[in-house]
């Protein structure tokens, strides 16, 4: 929200600096100095095992799902199309020892060929994977253009070989070894395409976010990664030192003059399974969306970042598309905060800053996903998230209509996903005259789930009329009923009912006899506002 000009830019960036006096610096060129963004789909699942017999990994549809969120338009990308992959086979492939190994070698060459013109044009490349093996194609292209570093943001090291290789003969998964492959360990067909090994040098790589489980240590030679010389900023480091400080460390390391730039590899499974379950190997100790936003925006802010790939998110595990939207939102925000995209077409330095202020404050207040205790059955207000047009009717005690006014209602998640905040504006903004004392109301409700009572606190603040009313809300059948008792002993219910995907109704009713008889005071009919399309 707009305070003074730039002040709000600091919260997100100063987050880690708050506890110490070191000011953080997100130094970057303005968006005018960055050369534009190009988008390339690499829908390859060649690097993964089948999720179950006879089923192809769904990560092939990641690009489609991310595009459907409208992200490309919001980032203002140039669309460079799609690099189709050869058909997936679950069979063992003995030549490389990797499932689909030879197909992957050919695909990597194709992908590199399609990435080359983008790198040469100095546009920032976004590659929508696919699984992590798309890194081979990206790495090959980069190596052919110089020496590039790598920010490897991933919940796994994608490096350590199995302790018992005999179990994996012909069936090694490239998506589980891509970091080893691109740094020169593995079959020649994959690590040395056109003699370019290694695509990345180990000393030019930073691993961010690795999270080890018992199984990892038991079944994989993790010591090989630990001794590889790759700088590692694991999940424990992020949690103890903070995403801000970690991202600065990574940025300083990657901004070295020894390289011509660096690539960003982002595997969705760096995120915690509680917020990102739609991945092949869910991460029980992963990053939060907010931490990822901090890391990604810091890296994107460097003029040396030349591109990124997004991998592993599996839309088949996200049937209603909300995880795709959350992922897209984090990426969009990171681009905004980094200064890589202008915040509106008529860019003026002031506007850019104000939008970044809003983006930064939005980041403190608002959230993308429900907190763990709120998710699932407890998340009763989730269907209301979004924007609504209202038709509001107030009734006389005799049941006749007192007045009828339009309105608007906007719901969003807040406070690390533990709360929902909604702004209720009657009449709506486009019908308000700011010179008159405002009629109606322009208020806000704060709602949060309390597991101690298995119910929601829901506090209405009617700032025009001087009202603060705390309610307790629960789902009852198909309705959500909020209840309070007035000072005069009168029972009040605010009820959400007839809840559908694009509409709902709401009523306010009171009872003076302990709940035997109810009188309806107000009814609202809400219809969902049309979303802007990509």
């Amino acid at each position, binding site marked *: *929200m*707009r*305070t003074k000009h*730039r*002040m*709000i830019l*600091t*919260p997100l960036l*100063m*987050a*880690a600096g*708050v*506890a110490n006096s070191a000011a953080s610096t997100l130094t970057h060129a303005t968006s005018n100095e960055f050369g534009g963004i190009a988008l390339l789909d690499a829908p390859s699942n060649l690097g993964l095992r089948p999720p179950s017999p006879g089923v192809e990994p769904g990560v092939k549809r990641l690009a489609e799902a991310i595009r459907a969120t409208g992200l490309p338009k919001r980032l203002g990308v140039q669309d460079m199309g799609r690099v189709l992959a050869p058909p997936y086979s679950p069979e063992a492939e003995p030549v490389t020892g990797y499932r689909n190994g030879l197909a992957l070698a050919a695909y990597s060459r194709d992908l590199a060929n399609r990435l080359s013109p983008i790198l040469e044009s100095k546009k920032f490349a976004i590659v929508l994977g696919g699984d992590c093996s798309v890194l081979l194609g990206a790495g090959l292209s980069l190596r052919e253009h110089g020496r590039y570093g790598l920010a490897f943001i991933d919940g796994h090291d994608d490096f350590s070989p199995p302790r018992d290789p005999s179990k994996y003969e012909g069936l090694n998964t490239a998506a589980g070894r891509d970091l080893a492959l691109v740094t020169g360990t593995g079959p020649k067909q994959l690590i040395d395409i056109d003699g370019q090994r290694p695509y990345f040098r180990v000393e030019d790589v930073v691993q961010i976010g690795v999270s080890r489980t018992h199984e990892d240590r038991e079944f994989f030679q993790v010591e090989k990664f630990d001794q590889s010389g790759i700088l590692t900023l694991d999940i424990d480091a992020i*949690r*103890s*030192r*903070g*995403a801000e*400080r970690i991202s600065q460390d990574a940025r300083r390391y990657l901004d070295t003059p020894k390289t011509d730039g660096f690539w960003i590899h982002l595997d969705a499974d760096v995120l*915690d399974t*509680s917020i990102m379950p739609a991945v092949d190997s869910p991460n029980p100790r992963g*990053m*939060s969306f907010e931490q990822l936003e901090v890391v990604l925006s810091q890296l994107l802010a460097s003029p040396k970042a030349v591109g990124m790939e997004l991998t592993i998110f599996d839309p088949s595990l996200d049937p209603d598309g909300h995880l795709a*939207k959350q992922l897209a939102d984090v990426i*969009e*925000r990171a681009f905004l905060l980094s200064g890589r995209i202008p915040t509106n077409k008529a860019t003026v330095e002031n506007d850019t800053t104000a939008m970044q202020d*809003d983006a930064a*404050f*939005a980041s*403190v*207040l*608002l959230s993308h996903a429900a907190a*763990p*205790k709120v998710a699932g059955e407890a998340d009763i207000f989730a269907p209301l*998230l*979004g*924007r609504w047009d209202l038709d509001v009717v107030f009734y006389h005690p005799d049941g006749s209509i007192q007045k009828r006014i339009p309105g608007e209602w*906007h719901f*969003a998640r807040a*406070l*690390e996903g*533990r*709360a929902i905040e*909604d*702004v209720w*504006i009657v009449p709506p903004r486009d019908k308000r005259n*700011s010179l008159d004392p405002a009629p109606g109301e*322009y208020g*806000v409700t*704060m709602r*949060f*789930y*309390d597991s*101690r009572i298995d119910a929601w606190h829901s*506090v209405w*603040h009617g*700032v025009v009329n*001087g009202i*603060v009313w*705390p309610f307790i809300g629960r789902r009852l059948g198909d309705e959500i009923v909020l209840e309070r008792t007035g000072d005069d002993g009168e029972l009040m219910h605010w009820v959400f009912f007839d809840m559908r995907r694009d509409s709902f109704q709401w009523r306010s009713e009171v009872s003076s006899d302990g709940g035997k008889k109810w009188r309806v005071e107000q009814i609202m009919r809400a219809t969902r506002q049309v979303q802007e399309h990509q």
Partner: protein
Amino acid sequence: MNPNQAMLNALDADGPAQPYEKELMLFGQFVGSWSLDVIYYNVDGSIRWQTPGEWHFGWVLEGRAIEDVWMVPPRSQRSIGPDPSGEYGVTLRFYDPKLGAWRSTWHGPVNGYVLPFIAKAVGDEIILERTERGEITRWIFGRVQADSFYWRAVNSADDGKTWRLDQEMFATRVLPLA
């Protein structure tokens, strides 16, 4: 448009609303961001927990209200998962001309608190007060300067004769980047 952005556009305001601009600046003076040193006390006066924190104030609702997000520990030190740390809550404050005072309500979702206060200036300080079950709680902003303030929470079970110090905060304004 990012759905959260639409909500923020509806919520957001540029500054205080007329005609109560002067009254609104009582809390309006805090708009911006603060870094905190927070100390919680046990009833015997020993320190229970000392932690850094963050506090961000902004204008909302056509400038009639201030919303502020408060958290301990700061974001960079927060873990995620089923057992969150500290608190990450919000206060909604607005000036009520009929009351001649502010209604200021703290919402703490981690610890399950909804605490409505009435707040007004008292001398150099701003005192938020509420009474529940015979106990008076006051949250007090004091030593307010442009770039710092001192906040304390005190509690009285004997109608204000004696007060127990429950919590302190030392706040420093976070300056904008150059």
